[in-house]
C-alpha cells in the first residue's frame, strides 16, 4: 500500500515537472504602466498585446500591472509578477518616477528577468551596465514642445510674430520640464513672439479652463496658447469657445488624445504630438522577448539600440485623415523583428 502511494506521488511529481517544463516555454509579458486612466497608457498596454499576437498562439500571455504613479506599488507589482512566473517573465516598465528604475534594475538583475523601460531613467543608470536591462527608450520631450510651438508661430496673422501664454503640467515632472524647454528653445528662435505668462495647471483641464478665462480678461490680444498636454489644451479651448475665440487664438498640445484629434478636425486646435504608445509598448516588449528567447544578447547590441528616442507623430489638419486611419480606426502594424525600426537617434547617457 505504502509502495503504491509512494509510486503515485512520484508519478504526480513527474507529471507536475513535465507540466512546469511545458509551461516554461510560455512567456509572460508584464506591461507595468501608470494606470488605465489615460488613452496613452492604454496604448502602451495594447502595444504589448500587439507584439504578443505576433508570436505563436498560446506561447505568450500579457498582463497589465498598474501603479497609479506610486513607486512602492510598482515595485511590489513587479516583484509579485516575477514571483509567479520566474524567469519566464519579461517586463516593459513605464516607471512611476525616474529613481524607481534603479530599484527595478536591481530586482530584475537578481531575478534574471529581461526588461525594458520607457520615458524615465534614474540618474547614473545605464542599461549597458546590466545584463538583463535590455534597453531604454523615450520620446524627445524637448522636440515635442519645440515642434508644436513652431507650428503655432507659423500660423499667426503675421507668421512668427505674436503674443502667447503657456499652460504647464505638474511642476518638476520630466515631461513637463522637457516640453517647456522645447518652447523656450522655439521662443529664442522667434524673438518676435512675446511670451506673456506661464501657469501651472497640473495636467488638469478644469484648472486650464479657469486659468484661460482669467487670461482672457487680462490679455485682449492673445495669439496663441501653448499647452504641455492635450487635456489642458482642451480645457483652454472650452474657455475660448465660450467667448467665440476658438480657432482665432491658436492652441497646441501634446499626447494625441482623441478629443484633441477631433479639435484639430474642427479647427479649434492647431496640432498635437501623439506619443505612439503602440510602438513603444510593442517594441519594448519585443526587445525583452528576443533577449529572453536568446535571439539577441543585450551586451552585443549596438549602443544606439540600448538607449534611444522614438518618433512622436505630429498630427495636424494636413495629415489628420492618415493618422486616424492608421492609429484610431485600426491598430498600427509593425515588423517587430526589425529592432532598428523604432530608433530615431540614440540617447546619450552621461555615466
Amino acid at each position, binding site marked *: 500500500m505504502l509502495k503504491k502511494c509512494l509510486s503515485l506521488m512520484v508519478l504526480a511529481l513527474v507529471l507536475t515537472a513535465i507540466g512546469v517544463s511545458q509551461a516554461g516555454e510560455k512567456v509572460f509579458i508584464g506591461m507595468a504602466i501608470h*494606470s*488605465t*486612466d*489615460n*488613452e496613452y*497608457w*492604454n496604448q502602451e498596454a495594447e502595444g504589448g498585446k500587439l507584439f504578443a499576437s505576433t508570436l505563436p498562439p498560446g506561447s505568450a500571455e500579457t498582463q497589465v500591472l498598474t501603479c497609479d504613479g506610486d513607486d512602492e506599488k510598482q515595485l511590489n507589482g513587479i516583484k509579485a509578477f516575477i514571483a509567479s512566473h520566474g524567469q519566464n517573465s519579461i517586463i516593459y516598465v513605464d516607471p512611476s518616477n525616474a529613481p524607481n528604475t534603479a530599484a527595478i534594475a536591481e530586482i530584475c538583475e537578481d531575478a534574471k528577468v529581461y526588461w525594458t523601460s520607457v520615458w524615465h531613467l534614474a540618474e547614473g543608470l545605464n542599461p549597458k551596465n546590466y545584463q538583463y536591462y535590455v534597453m531604454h527608450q523615450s520620446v524627445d520631450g524637448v522636440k515635442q514642445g519645440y515642434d508644436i510651438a513652431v507650428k503655432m508661430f507659423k500660423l499667426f496673422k503675421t507668421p512668427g510674430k505674436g503674443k502667447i501664454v503657456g499652460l*504647464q503640467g505638474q*511642476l518638476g515632472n520630466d515631461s513637463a520640464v522637457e516640453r517647456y524647454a522645447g518652447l523656450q528653445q522655439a521662443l529664442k528662435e522667434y524673438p518676435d513672439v512675446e511670451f*506673456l*505668462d*506661464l*501657469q*501651472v495647471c*497640473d*495636467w*488638469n*483641464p*478644469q*484648472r486650464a*479652463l*479657469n*486659468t484661460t*478665462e*482669467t*487670461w*482672457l*480678461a*487680462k490679455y485682449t490680444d492673445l495669439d496663441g496658447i501653448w499647452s504641455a498636454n492635450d*487635456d489642458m489644451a*482642451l*480645457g483652454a479651448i*472650452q474657455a475660448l*469657445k*465660450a467667448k467665440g475665440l476658438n480657432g482665432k487664438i491658436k492652441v497646441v498640445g501634446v499626447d494625441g*488624445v*482623441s*478629443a484633441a484629434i*477631433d479639435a484639430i478636425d474642427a479647427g479649434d486646435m492647431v496640432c498635437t504630438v501623439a506619443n505612439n504608445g503602440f510602438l513603444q509598448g510593442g517594441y519594448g516588449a519585443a526587445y525583452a522577448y528576443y533577449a529572453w528567447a536568446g535571439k539577441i544578447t543585450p551586451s552585443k547590441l549596438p549602443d544606439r539600440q540600448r538607449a534611444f528616442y522614438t518618433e512622436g507623430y505630429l498630427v495636424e489638419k494636413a495629415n489628420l485623415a492618415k493618422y486616424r486611419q492608421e492609429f484610431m480606426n485600426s491598430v498600427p502594424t509593425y515588423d517587430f523583428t526589425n529592432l532598428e525600426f523604432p530608433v530615431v537617434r540614440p540617447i546619450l547617457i552621461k555615466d
Partner: protein
Amino acid sequence: MANSASLPGRGDLTIAEEFAQKIADERRHNQLMQMVPGIILASFAVLASLFVGGFFTVTNAINILNQISIPLILATGITNVIIIGGIDLSIEGVMGFCASIVTLLVLNKKNSMDLGVLGMALTVAAGTFIGFVTGVLHVKMRIPSFMVSFGMGSVITGFGIMSYGGKPATVEYALFPAISQGSILGIPYLSFMALGIFLVGCFIQKYTAFARAIYAIGDNEGVLRSTGVNVDWVKIKAFAWCACCASLAGLFGAIRLNRGEVIIGQGNLFTTITALVVGGASLAGGKGGMLESLVGVVIVVIIQNCMILLGINPYIQEAVKGVIIILAVALSVTRGKKDFVK
C-alpha cells in the same frame, strides 16, 4: 471675591450682572469675529481693484462668477458635514465619477447612449447614493468620517476610470454647450444655477429641523441624542446631501469641459475646505454656515484669480495657498478659544 470686586469698572456689579456682562462681551466679540471674513473679502476686493490690472473689469467679474460656481456648490454640500464635526474627503471622487458617467449617459462619441436629462438625473441620483453609503458606513460601522470618505473617494474614482476605460467621452448632446456658453446679461447660466443650489442650501439651513439638528450635533452630540433625535439619520442625510452637491458639481464640470474624466474632480477638495475655513467654519464642528461659506469661496477664488492676473511665479502660488489655510485655521482657533487640540 474681593479681587473681582476691585476690578476697575466692575466694582459695583453683582455676580449676576457680571455674568450677563461677560456673556454680552463674548457675544460682541463673536459678532466682531464673524465679520472678519467679510472685512477681509471687502479689503481684498478693494486692493485688487486698485492694484491688479484687469481685475476690475466686467469680463473678470463674470470670470469670477463662473469660477465660483463649482466650489460654491461643493461648499453648499460639505458645510453641513463640517458643522457636525465630520469631513467628507470623497467629494473629489464623487465629482470625478459623476463627471465621467454623465458623459457616457447622454449623447456622446463613445457609446450609443442618449438619455439626455434623464441621464443627468440618474448621475445625480447615483452620486447621492454614494454619499448615503458613506454616511451609513460612518454611523453604523462607526468608522471615522475622514477614513470612510477617503476610502469611498478612492473606490469611486476607480469606478469612474473603469467607466470610460481610459478614453474619456466627448459629449455631443447639444444641451451641454448651450448651458456652458449661454448667458443672461453676460452672466453664464451655470453661475445662476450654482446660485440656485446655494439658495436651496440657505433655505435648508434657515427653515428646517435638519439644519438645527446639524448644529446641535456639532455642539454636543450627546445632548441631542438624549432628546430622542435620530442623530444617525441626520448624519446620513448630511453625507447624502454633500454627495448630491458633489455630483452636481461633477455635472457642471462635465458641462463646462464637454467631456468627462475623473481628473475634473481633482484639486477641488483643497479649494473647498480652504474656502470654508477662511469663511469661518471650524473643523471641530458647530460653527459655520452658508453665508460664511459663500464669503470664503469668493475670497479663495479672488486670490486665485489675482495670482494669475499678477503673473505670480507658479512655484510661489502653491505656497501662498498653504499659508492662507494655516492662517485661517490659526484665526479660527483663536476665535473658538479651544481648550485642547487633538
